[in-house]
């Protein structure tokens, strides 16, 4: 369970070694572009680029299985809804009794699903190749306050711990006859007794933790020495800028009539 929060996969690929900001900008601009470009073909192109990057990083299988697990259930829903109810629907493809499916809606659903696939793959690509601790460290080196760095690092540590505790409480209550099935109001009423002990103890601990942190000098406005410096380079910086400029450029192109 511990460390269960991070999806980071050890590796030494180009993407693994890249500065966290480079990967962050890559992810954000890939997603932005997927939602700006005019046609499904372009979105598919972006998806292919992302998958190639993932393959180069040795992550193709994880990337595909992860994305399929997220995208397929969603896409079933999207195809069902859009194929049936999209306002542009004209051309009947097939009918299941009274429910008629149309070409326009299904095509639109395909477009939407491709975009979501881009979003999911880009996000996974970032999470698989970037240590969470590196993100906060990189942010702090670029001026994020140590307090906010603490918030990030601490959240990453506390979440798995709290989830462990939640599982334990749940098991304990289940042996005492907790109802996880049954009518809504009964399940809702079971919820608070599960939450209260968990939440109160972790909230009350903050008081002593805050004191203990002050006793160690937390909050001093002293220039902090970096623990390690991330390899950054001019090519990486240029790449970042180019990628950051791509989405605005695409918007301009769309406004100028890119179909």
């Amino acid at each position, binding site marked *: 369970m511990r460390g269960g929060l991070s999806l980071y996969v050890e590796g030494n690929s180009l993407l693994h070694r890249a500065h966290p900001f480079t990967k962050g900008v890559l992810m954000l601009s890939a997603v932005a572009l997927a939602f700006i470009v005019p046609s499904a073909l372009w979105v598919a192109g972006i998806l292919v680029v992302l998958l190639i990057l993932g393959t180069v990083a040795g992550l193709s299988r994880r990337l595909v299985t992860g994305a399929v697990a*997220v995208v397929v259930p969603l896409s079933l829903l999207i195809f069902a809804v*859009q194929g*049936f109810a999209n306002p542009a629907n004209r051309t009947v493809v097939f009918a299941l009794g009274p429910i008629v499916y149309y070409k326009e809606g299904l095509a639109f659903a395909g477009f939407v699903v491709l975009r979501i696939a881009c979003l999911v793959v880009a996000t996974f690509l970032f999470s698989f190749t970037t240590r969470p601790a590196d993100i906060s460290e990189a942010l702090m080196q670029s001026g994020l306050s140590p307090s906010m760095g603490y918030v990030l690092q601490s959240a990453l540590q506390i979440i798995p711990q*709290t989830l462990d505790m939640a599982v334990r409480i749940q098991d304990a209550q289940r042996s005492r006859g907790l109802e996880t099935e049954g009518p809504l109001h009964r399940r809702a009423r079971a919820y608070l007794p599960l939450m209260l002990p968990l939440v109160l103890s972790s909230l009350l601990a903050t008081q002593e933790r805050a004191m203990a942190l002050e006793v160690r000098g937390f909050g001093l406005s002293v220039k902090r020495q970096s623990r390690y410096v991330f390899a950054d380079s001019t090519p990486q910086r240029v790449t970042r800028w180019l990628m950051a400029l791509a989405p605005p450029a695409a918007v301009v192109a769309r406004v100028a009539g890119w179909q």
Partner: protein
Amino acid sequence: MGVLNAFKFRMNTLAIVLIPVCIAIDWAGHALAQALHLFFLDSIGTVLGGLLAGPWVGGLAGLLTNILSSGSTDPIAWSYCGVAFAIGVVAGIGGYYGWHKTWPGRIILYVLIVLAASIISTPINIGLYGGGSGVAYGDAMYAALVKSGWPTWLAAYLDEASADIPDKFITVVVATAIYFGLPNRYRALFSVWRRSPGEPEPAPAR
């Protein structure tokens, strides 16, 4: 000054330490909700953080809850981090005015949180899913409404709101219950951010 005073950035160590705990509560709340098949319930910590320590703590807790879940279980979550931020900010404003202490105030708090969540989510749903919300029963309603001629934006809003109305009800009830389950002395440690501008800054916390 009014409500802007609530937004003055004055975080003591306790408030900073509270943020990760709120994030963890969001996660645990969601995990337990999944076990009981109860909606999402992933913003109880966010609301609690807002009530206790103001809009910045609430907002940041919400924002980071979503970003961190994108990094693990739910890669799409970060698209909605603005929604979670807004929920925390609304709870912070409620905490500033003490809405959670009276029944009319609690209703205002609940209604505003539902409005913030549903209004901000709707355009994201439209952009992302073309209208649905990714939740089966809501999307079935969306399909039925659009089919009978309703405008897509309205159907998308109702789809989203149909999930937020029960979800945020339990969220607000549980968050206020936890708030009042905390010892007075503990709650008082956070009151620094509620002071009016004229009051002298006291010792960092109490």
